[in-house]
């Protein structure tokens, strides 16, 4: 900005503010901390806070702000130039296996569980899973938009693949995931989860499980690929340091395996395209698709209503952090029943859900403040909606086709409801959650 600046941040983000200032090139940035949280505090409470001390420095808050804007700088704050990060050694210093395991844990290079130690021999064997050179740059990844991006090579991805217990034949899937630049540990206070869906011939080649228990701990490829994505995110994407590059307040158990599974393409009813074909790839291409969200419910609800309406009504009343998008995962026998009920394609069923899902009143008004003001002023149709009451359904879908948030102008609208199929057909189960499609990427280019 070019003028004296002070940042005010709540004390929960002290480490984040300090580390971000350093990484952005201003390690001396003046920061004043407030008690946490500030959201929801009244004017009276705010006045009490502001007349007290910065809870970390112990100095009077207002005086510290003014001093940060006014007082002459230290010499090191005026420096320009490059701050060295230290040499990155390819090999770590020799140690015993037990000590190395402990060091990996202590440095938060794992998911909290023991890893396969990545000896050079094991990494060399892993590299046989791709034709790409070990020193080729695969891409870059960051914990979220404001954070710095780290770069990484094929060999570095292979190293993390070994740690996760992957086989060499899984490596192209992991390289494709890594090349998307999508971390599985997106840094937000809201504890994001991610999902990876694999389509195409590679599902069978590496023996992934799309049948009974596909989302559970029953298959090496599903499990190891999902786990490796977390290790890649931590070690190659700079993610996952609680307090600085991970702020999820409660954390999310889905981050362990990242809901990694292959779509049950062969069990889809005729006319229902696999996900990668929906996204513009050929059926015989191998593709991984990344989804982002927070939570999932698993449901089998038997009702005299048609299945599509049970799902639609559930979607109307489903509430989670990300209420503007949804992904429905159907057991293939549910998909067959929906086809029987008249839905000739996945997209036709998705469109039905997008158009017919309504909003419970309490949710509609909490997400449409302007409409609420109009309703209070008697403006129609909002006034009539308000008369329906808080629990009634407002006939406006909350699943709206719009470009992804922050996308450049001209970006086509995303599909707010996605439909996938996986499972062993043991019952008419389906799952629903607030996940949205982020990107689909070729696996074949990394073979």
């Amino acid at each position, binding site marked *: 900005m070019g*003028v004296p600046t002070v940042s005010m941040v709540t004390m*929960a983000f002290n480490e984040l503010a300090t580390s971000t200032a350093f990484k*952005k090139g201003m390690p001396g940035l003046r920061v004043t901390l407030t008690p946490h949280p500030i959201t929801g505090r009244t004017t009276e409470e705010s006045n009490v806070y502001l007349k007290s001390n910065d809870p970390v420095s112990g100095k009077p808050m207002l005086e510290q702000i003014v001093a940060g804007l006014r007082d002459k700088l230290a010499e090191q704050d005026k420096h320009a130039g490059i701050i060295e990060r230290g040499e990155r050694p390819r*090999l770590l210093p020799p140690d015993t296996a037990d000590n190395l395991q402990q060091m990996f844990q202590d440095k938060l290079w794992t998911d909290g569980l023991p890893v396969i130690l990545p000896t*050079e021999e094991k*990494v060399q064997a892993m590299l046989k899973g791709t034709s790409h050179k070990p020193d080729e740059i695969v891409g870059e990844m960051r914990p979220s938009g404001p954070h710095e991006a*780290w770069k990484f090579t094929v060999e570095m991805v292979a190293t993390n693949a*070994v740690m996760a217990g992957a086989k060499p034949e899984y490596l192209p899937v992991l390289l494709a995931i890594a090349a998307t630049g999508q971390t599985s540990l997106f840094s937000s206070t809201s504890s994001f989860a991610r999902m990876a869906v694999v389509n195409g011939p590679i599902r069978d080649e590496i023996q992934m499980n799309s049948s009974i228990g596909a989302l559970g701990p029953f298959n090496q490829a599903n499990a190891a690929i999902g786990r490796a994505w977390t290790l890649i995110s931590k070690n*190659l994407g700079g993610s996952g340091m609680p307090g600085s590059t991970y702020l999820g307040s409660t954390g999310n158990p889905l981050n362990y395996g990242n809901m990694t599974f292959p779509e049950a393409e062969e069990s889809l009813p005729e006319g229902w395209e696999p996900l990668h074909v929906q996204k513009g790839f050929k059926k015989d291409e191998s593709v991984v698709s990344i989804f982002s969200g927070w939570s999932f419910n698993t449901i089998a609800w038997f009702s005299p209503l048609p299945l599509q309406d049970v799902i639609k009504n559930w979607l109307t009343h489903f509430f989670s952090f990300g209420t503007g998008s949804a992904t429905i995962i159907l057991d293939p026998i549910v998909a067959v029943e929906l086809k029987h009920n008249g839905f000739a394609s996945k997209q036709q069923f998705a469109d039905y859900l997008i158009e017919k899902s309504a909003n419970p009143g309490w949710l509609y008004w909490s997400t449409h403040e302007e409409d609420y003001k109009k309703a209070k002023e008697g403006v129609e149709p909002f006034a009539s909606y308000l008369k329906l009451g808080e629990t009634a359904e407002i006939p406006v879908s909350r699943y709206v086709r719009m470009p992804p948030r922050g996308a450049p102008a001209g970006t086509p609208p995303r599909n707010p409801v996605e439909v996938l199929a996986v499972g062993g057909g043991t019952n008419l189960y389906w799952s629903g959650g607030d996940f949205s499609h982020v990107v689909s990427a070729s696996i074949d280019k990394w073979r």
Partner: protein
Amino acid sequence: MKNGKLWLLNTVLFISALLTGTVTAAPDEKITVMNPRGIMPAIKQIPMADRPGSLDGKTIYIVDTKFANTKPFVIAVRDNLAAAYPKTTWISIDKVGGYMQDDPNLWAEIKAKGHGAIVLLGH
């Protein structure tokens, strides 16, 4: 002869262990592993703006990044500073968009018309 048989037995056991993959490093044996970490970017240090030594007669912008439900605190920051430092002009202003969105027009305005900024807040 007895020693010869023992040697032969040990050799057979060792080879079979090798073949079945049951040979592991001794607990105190040191091994070398690959570094799992990626490549951090270089950091280009930005010199901080010179401070004036006094804020008397100066204009300071208080930039609200508009995190939900924090407006009373932002206004209180402005009012408390104005009461404690009346010789300085304190202007509170909203940044455009959400808290993640850049606002180059506002930064240009502050540089042209102001002498400093307080950027806040969140959560």
